[in-house]
Every structure is written in C-alpha cells, then in structure tokens.
C-alpha cells in the first residue's frame, strides 16, 4: 500500500506526459544504454552481447507510424553509435531509419491493433530485420565476412530488452494521430 502511494504520483505524471517529454526520455534512455555498452562487458570470462539500443527505440517509436522528431532522434542515436563503434558515419543511421520505416509500414498495413499475435510478433521480426541489415552493411563495408554469432547474440539481448523498455517508448499517441508531435 505504501509502495503504491509512492509510485502512483509518478505513474500519473507519466500518463499525463506528452509525446515530446516521452521522446526525450526515450532518447536519454537509449543514449544511456549505448554509453553503458562501451564499458568492458565480460561475465565470468564470457563476453556479453550488448543490445542495439537504436533498434529498440526505432521499433518502439514506430508503433504509431512515421513522425519527424523520432526520425531526427534516431539519426542522432545512429550517429552516436557510429562514432562509438568505429563504424563509418551513416551506418547505424541507415539501419535505425530502415527498421523504423519497416515497422511503421508493416504496422500500418497489417492493422496490428486488432491482431494481438501480429502485434507481439512484428517487433521481434523488425529487430531481426534491423540486425540482418546491420550485418549486410558491415559485410559490404568490411573486407571480410562478418561473424554472425555476436550479431545473433546482440539480437537476442535486443529482443530481451525491448519488452522491458517498450512502455517507456510509447509516445502517447494513436496511430495516424498528428497532434503535438509533428
């Protein structure tokens, strides 16, 4: 009961929060995950695959269709990922944007609001498509075959992260609704 009295005002505040605040919070969250991912990540001598926070944000924000500000935020996140992972600038920007567009298009075309199975399956397929896209970009730019296993591990951890942070990536807007977010 005491716990509820503590969390209720926060939750109420969150329910009232507009799309801009939610977008800022989501961007901050994704940035934090990217930066934490730069620290050494081995557990009992085994390297831990780190999730692609940009892809999670792309899928989370694409649920309500295309919007301009989430696209800009994804570009910024992509540039940060490019700079920190020594990728040529633009790689992660393209991957994030394609994943965003892909999920928005699929969600719009398949009417996921009325199909719970599709609603649950499509995000993971989009994350997989984004990871495959990243592998393709890396393969085209590198002079060797890029290892699949680490990327597969990263997709798994990305898929595990998605349901945890997805509530924080809801932009408080119905699909197709335009008000407030541009």
């Amino acid at each position, binding site marked *: 009961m005491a716990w509820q009295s503590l969390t209720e005002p926060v939750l109420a505040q969150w329910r009232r929060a507009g799309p801009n605040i939610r977008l800022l919070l989501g961007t901050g969250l994704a940035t934090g995950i990217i930066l934490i991912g*730069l620290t050494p990540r081995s557990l009992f001598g085994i390297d831990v695959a*780190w999730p692609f926070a940009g892809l999670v944000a792309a899928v989370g924000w694409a649920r309500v269709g295309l919007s301009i500000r989430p696209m800009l935020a994804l570009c910024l996140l992509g540039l940060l990922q490019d*700079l920190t*992972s*020594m990728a040529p600038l*633009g790689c992660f*920007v393209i991957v994030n944007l394609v994943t965003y567009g892909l999920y928005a298009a699929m969600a719009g075309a398949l009417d996921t609001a009325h199909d719970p199975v599709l609603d649950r399956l499509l995000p993971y397929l989009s994350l997989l498509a984004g990871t495959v896209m990243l592998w393709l970009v890396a393969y085209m730019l590198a002079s060797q075959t890029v*290892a699949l296993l680490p990327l597969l591990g990263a997709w798994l951890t990305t898929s595990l992260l998605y349901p945890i942070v997805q509530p924080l990536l809801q932009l408080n807007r119905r699909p197709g609704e*335009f008000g407030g977010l541009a």
Partner: protein
Amino acid sequence: MARQARTVAGKRPARRLFYGVLLALALALLIVQGAPGIAAFFSPARTLTGDMIVAGGQTVKTHKPGLLAHLTGQAQNEARIDRLEARVRELSQYELAARSMAQRLEAYESMLNALGEPPRKGVTARIVAEPGGPFLETLLANAGHAQGVRTDYIAVNEGGLVGRVIEVGDISSRILMVTDYNSRVPVLGETSGVRAILFGDRDGDGVLDDRPERDAFIPGERVLTSGEGGIFPRGLTVGEVYPGPGSGDETRWRVRFSLAETRGGFVRLIPPARIPAPEDAPVTGEETLAETQRSDSPSSAETATTAVQ
C-alpha cells in the same frame, strides 16, 4: 473531424518525404566517406567523442569512498588491491623486458656489432571503453596527446601485445586491437624462428600468413613480434601457435592471443621502434667516408701527432 482527417492525410506524404530525405542523406554520408580525404574530415568528431567518454569515465571513477566503506574496511581493501594491482603491472613490465632482452641477446650472439633496440618509454593508461559491434575491434584508453601518446604507439598489457594506437585525442587514444582483421603484425616463432604476418580472424584467434621461409611453426611455441616494419619492437609476446584446419594438405597456422588471458583493464603505451631512413635523418656535418677513414687510420693519427710536436 473531416478537417482533422484532411490535415493528417496532408501531413503523411510530408513525413514520408522527410523520411526519404533523411535516408538519402545518411546513404550519401556513408558513400562519400569512401574518399580518404573526406573520411579524415570526420576523424576529429571521433576523437572528440573519445575525449568526452574518457572525461565522463574519469568523473565517475574519482568518487571518494563513503563513511560506510571506511567503517567496514572496504575502502582499505580497495586501496590495498589498487596498490597490489599497480605492483603487478609494474612487475609484469619487468617480465616483458626480461623476455625481450633474452631475445635480443640471442640476436646479438648471432650478429656481431648489431645495434640494440632503442630504450622504451611510455605511459600506462586505463581502458575506459571497449566498443563492440561488427566493425573495427578497438579499445579506448584514457591517455592521449597531452600525456605524450602519438599515433602508432604500441599497446601492451600483462599478457603481451594488445594493439597499436590509430587515433589520438587530447586525453584519449584509440587502439586497434591485434585481434582485428585489419591489424597486420610481423611476428616470428620463438623457437623455430619462422617469420610471418599475423592478423585477427572472426573467431578471436589469429592467422599466420605470408611466411617467407615457408617452414612450419612448432605447435605450442610462443609467437613474438619480429621488429620488422619498424613499428612493433622486437620480442613482444603475442600468443601461442597451434595448427588449424587449412585448405588441402597445407596447415593453417593459428595463434591463441595471450592478451585475452590477462585483461586487467590497463595497457602500457610505448613508442614505436621506428628507425628513420637515411634520407629522413641525414648526417648533419660535412664528414665523408674518405675523411672518416683518414681519421681512423693509425698513420694519419701519427702524422697528426708529429705535426703537433
């Protein structure tokens, strides 16, 4: 209602257009970096990001232990661990130096009048970031231009060779790991003496290629840097050789990197063993070979002595 629907329908193509423009811009950015000049233009952005990450990491690291940590003895334990780790790092440098000296001694015995390696100075830095991903395998260390680190400095840890500095910021430097495919290290077998070029493979181990002698390595022998190429000093431990599956009858020699065994979070950055070419460092005086021979010969010395008398 109808008006709102018209507004939404009118904005949708604009969003799609914006999406297309962003994608095209990102693609253009990616393509123009194929030109080395343009890629170099973006390099300061990377070094700046590295500096910012290092500065952030140092802010987090320099926190003072709290009262609870003092009361429970945790602070004293941590201080003792820090001291011992520093001592181990220092001693490991001596160990590396001893191995290197043994190698050099062997070389000197076989080649009379050979000049030794130049003395190594360097700086110990903490690894503050290990960016993963499918692109370059790099590390970010918290020492840069301000600490005297320059491009091509060599990074070693307790296990041996870690990599080479490829980018230097003011307070940070980026190290291309020896495990990366793009890294090329001239090496030799400690016992067999077979030379090769080493590069990283996808599975985390190295591949030995381009062997001029075409001889076989001895499985289990240590691989050291050969000092050829003028960047990596001779005698740094790189790893251990093992035969891997190759194409046809030929064995593909692989290397298990020794840096992986002791990832202590610190690296020592030492200057490259670069010897300048004669044209880069010409003799400053006017002394010629004939003059040198004249001054070295006893008769000329006697003549000079007589003249003085």
